[in-house]
């Protein structure tokens, strides 16, 4: 079942402000919000009732520092109580500066150290395939700077070579890689046999088209480009 109810931006903004508690957030938080909204509102087949369903879609937040918007969205969608947002990072909070899957319902992986999500995503995709679960899809959200980590390139090459068709990587490209990706991030995937779409990371319709543009035979990457750090 694909959820089609949109998360009210005003609600999301208010929830994010509860997480923020007066602190300044960097561009990494705001640049991720649109893609998270499109994923949870229109793409991922996950609800608070299906967080343990073996046939659910998997969303793996590999860039674990982009956590504020993630928590706000999980609260907006009912995965975690809204009250949890108020003490984020506190001594009794379940919400750290990076997410922990053992502490937060709906969180598929604990992340923080960069370059771990895509390998875990490849393993998850292989596990689903070994179990004959052809329906669920694995989505992994990375950052363009995170792509610096060589472990990603191990996963990109292997997933492409073996046609891991139930895997989608999303690269949130806010141009933060110190040495950049000349020619764009997508080329690092397509040269290994992935399908790719590069879109405006603020354009919900374009994101939705890209995030549903896989062909089921090859892994798919969506590069979501966000060059300004504000969130409307």
């Amino acid at each position: 079942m694909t959820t089609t109810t949109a998360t009210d931006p005003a609600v999301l903004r208010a929830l994010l402000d509860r997480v923020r508690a007066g602190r300044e957030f960097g561009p990494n938080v705001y640049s991720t919000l649109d893609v998270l909204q499109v994923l949870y509102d229109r793409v991922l087949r996950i609800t608070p009732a299906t967080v343990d369903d073996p046939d659910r879609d998997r969303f793996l937040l590999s860039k674990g520092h982009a956590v504020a918007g993630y928590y706000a969205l999980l609260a907006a969608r009912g995965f975690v109580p809204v009250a949890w947002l108020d003490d984020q990072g506190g001594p009794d909070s379940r919400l750290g500066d990076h997410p922990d899957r053992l502490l937060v319902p709906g969180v598929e992986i604990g992340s923080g150290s960069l370059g771990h999500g895509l390998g875990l995503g490849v393993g998850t995709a292989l596990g689903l395939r070994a179990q004959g679960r052809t329906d669920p899809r694995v989505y992994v959200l990375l950052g363009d700077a995170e792509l610096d980590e060589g472990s990603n390139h191990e996963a990109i090459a292997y997933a492409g070579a073996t046609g891991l068709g139930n895997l989608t990587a999303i690269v949130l490209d806010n141009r933060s890689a110190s040495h950049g990706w000349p020619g764009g991030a997508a080329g690092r995937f397509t040269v290994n046999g992935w399908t790719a779409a590069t879109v405006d990371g603020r354009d919900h319709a374009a994101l939705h088209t890209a995030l549903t543009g896989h062909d089921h035979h090859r892994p798919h990457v969506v590069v979501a480009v966000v060059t300004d750090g504000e969130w409307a």
Partner: protein
Amino acid sequence: MTMRDTFVTTAEEVLADPRTTVVLADISAAAFAPAAARYPGRVVNVGIREQLMVGVAGGLALTGQRPIVHSYAPFLVERAYEQIKLDLDHQGVGAVLVSVGASYDRAAAGRTHLAPADVALIDTLNDWTVHVPGHPDEVPGLLRDAVCGRGSTYLRLSTQTNARAYPEAGDLRVVRDAGPGAPLLVAVGPLLDAALAAVADRPVTVAWTHRPRPFDTAGLRALAGTEVILVEPYLAGTSARVVAAALADRPHRLLALGVGRSELRRYGGPEDHDRWHGLDAAGLRRSVDDFLTPARAAA
């Protein structure tokens, strides 16, 4: 049959359970080719990519698969240590890690293929079971039990072996009893035969285990007198902290023997490195005698 052979044979048997998946990084891929043909999709060779190998194991375990991850010891444990820490332990999932190569099975290959620190590194993690078998016949049972469980196990295979198998000696097994109060020598894995030869005519009780973690501390407390000697086929002192904690309420002396820290930059064979690290029978006897006769050591 080597330990590696019995591992491959047993792994193929346990692959009959559809929840089992073998994850490789080229090492032993040829040996697993028949299993891969029989169980497509559940023998995964990621190529020479050890970070991915362990990450894939974590992802598989998240879906409920039971991963068996296999490579050369330094590439399995040391190269991908953060993946072991985060992609398995931090995610709250387990795997069975099976290494070959041990401390210096391929001594002539040089430092890159030596892994004396592997057990110590695994020991920085919480709640792992570590098996160091001393004979190929011990491997099938250890692998089957590990795969049946849900936790994490490190199974350290070697070309060095004892002459006979001592199965089911996770708890300390007394191989030679020198009577109450005698010094206790605990040998781990393939060093039992050398240890027995070293103290053959000495009044020393010899106990053996293939399972240094969790260490049988109750058995240790039951057997230990004042003197305890550890003989481990990996980094010297790896189990010293466990013994010290187990005997913290008793006056005791501990001699922890094993592989030294310094890089020898010498080739040869494993038997040469045993000798250079004092782990052959003659070297062990010297160390034990010095320990049990302090005046002699001082002289």
